[in-house]
């Protein structure tokens, strides 16, 4: 299931969209992420797999700006970038869908989609009047475009099912596409049942449009191999290997996750 051309053969010699170099982060004595290098190509889906505690979430949060690295560099299009806050990463077109979804159960669907970027008029900044009708209209249009079934954008997110909540989080992450290059997803289907999880996978496939590159953490190896172009294996904070999703197998992945091995030739 790979109708997309290999992202590595990009023709031109342009630098990868995102490059991490020598990223380290420790929590006390725990080396959560150690000397990790990763490349993310344009229009690529890169899977990240590894045991619990392998450092997958920490790596992603470093890209999203909510965890700061102890050392290492981040480059976009070959240029070094400074990501120290979530604002920085959003400005660079990086959106993250957190494992806990980071939704506001007490706010309605439209507010959750627009939070932090609400259309306002009248006074500037915090005192601006929310254009609620526009928020509902545009949120409804977005959900429809993504084939997401939610009765009303006025429902508080707290009453939605697990799958619907996941969809709202994804919709929020892709809502502002002009500036949307990289989507980071931390276990988007971990808490979902089989049917809902399939729907989410379908949605991820759908949103992979031009200019959208995705990094996705998952425990479901077959699903990752199906969805991703390449799969990066992490173990105890280290980048163990990167595999071509088409030529590897579930067994090979699982072996690497469990046993670990020195990083193979070529780098992610």
């Amino acid at each position, binding site marked *: 299931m790979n109708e997309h051309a290999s992202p590595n053969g990009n023709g031109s010699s342009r630098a990868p969209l995102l490059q991490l170099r020598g990223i380290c982060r420790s929590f006390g004595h725990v080396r959560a992420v150690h000397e990790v290098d990763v490349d993310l190509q344009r229009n690529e889906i890169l899977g990240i797999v590894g045991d619990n505690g392998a450092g997958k979430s920490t790596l992603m949060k470093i890209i*999203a*700006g*909510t965890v700061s690295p102890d050392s290492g560099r981040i480059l976009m299009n070959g240029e070094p970038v400074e990501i120290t*806050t*979530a*604002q920085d990463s*959003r400005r660079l077109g990086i959106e*993250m869908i*957190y494992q*806990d*979804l*980071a*939704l*506001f*159960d*007490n*706010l309605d669907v439209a*507010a959750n989609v627009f*939070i*932090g970027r*609400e259309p*306002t008029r009248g*006074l500037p*900044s*915090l*005192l*601006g*009047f*929310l254009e609620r009708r526009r928020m509902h209209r545009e949120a409804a249009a977005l959900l429809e475009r993504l084939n997401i*079934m*939610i*009765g*009303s954008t006025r*429902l*508080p997110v707290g*009453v*939605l*099912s*697990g*799958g*619907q909540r996941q969809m709202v989080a994804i919709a*929020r992450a892709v809502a502002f596409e002009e500036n949307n290059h990289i989507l980071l997803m931390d276990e988007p289907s971990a*808490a*979902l*049942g*089989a049917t*809902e999880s399939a729907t989410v996978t379908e949605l991820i496939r759908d949103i992979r449009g031009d200019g959208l590159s995705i990094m996705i953490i998952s425990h479901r190896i077959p699903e990752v191999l199906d969805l991703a172009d390449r799969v990066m294996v992490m173990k105890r904070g280290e980048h163990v290997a990167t595999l071509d999703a088409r030529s590897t197998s579930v067994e090979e992945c699982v072996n690497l996750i469990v046993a670990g091995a020195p990083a193979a030739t070529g780098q992610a």
Partner: protein
Amino acid sequence: MTAVVPEDPTTEMSGWPQRLRDLVFSGKLTWVTLGAVIVAEFVIFSIAAPRFLSTTNLLNTGRATAVLMIVATGATFGLISGALDISGASVMALSGTIGTQIVIAGYPASLAILAAIASGFGAGLVNGFVVVKLRVNPLVATLGMLGIALGLAFIVDGGSGIAGNLRQTTDGAYGVMKNDLVGIPLPLVFAVLFAAAGWVLLAKTRFGLYAYAVGGNASAGRSVALPVDRLRMMYLVFSGACAATGGWVLSSTLGGSGAASVPGTLILTVVTAVILGGVGLMGGTGTMGGTILGVIVLGVLENGMTLAGWPTFYQYVVEGLLLLLAVGLEAVRTGGYR
């Protein structure tokens, strides 16, 4: 983990279950209940005290309740953002005392009013700093301010607790709130406008939406790049400024005031009104409409019980019981304290 996902709550429902659900979630059920309570109060008190329904008495109730409304507006923002601010009554005392002493010292009323309200900004900033930077529980932080602001108020009025020379404060612009506007007490007019502005701010602006956001899920706020700490600080500053405004209105109504002019139990009334109005103790829920109704319930209750001849200390008991009732109802609704 597959079986826990319930059937889609959004498409299965129609007709009255959907409407009932909407009613509960919109907070309008609280409004209906409080409306019924207010009607019941009117019936009971008009029977218990014939004078209760007179225009004069109703306007007096409005005057007496105005300050409560102003302080409760600020407390509503604070609590929705996740901070129960109990320093309000002390900040009122500080504000009124500073304003009064500045007028007595011969400075213009405008400066006195400005300084009075600025004192609330200051108190709110300190509260916000302690909560956000030192990560102290808001209840404890504002308990500290409850002591500090009241103590400062006594220091400002020389320890007497009273205003001192009242002539300047009574006659000048500082005491403007003693007057009526077309027969309606000015504090009531002011409080109505104040509450209306608070309503718009909470329901229609980003400032209001973010109070729900940081109160509902602060960590999600950080994830989506909201300036959570700055916002939480702002709601406490806003709460302090509202309390100080209420402090000036009270001081102005009295024609000048000292530290002892604000009853210490006023904060009980404020918190009871806000929670009765449906603002959840855990933050993230509530409306200005609910707070307004909660304020009316308590304002009418105080006036009615006084007219009916109940001593003040009974009123404290009733208010305390009401607070426990409101908190208890919330606990039932949300699954209780964990």
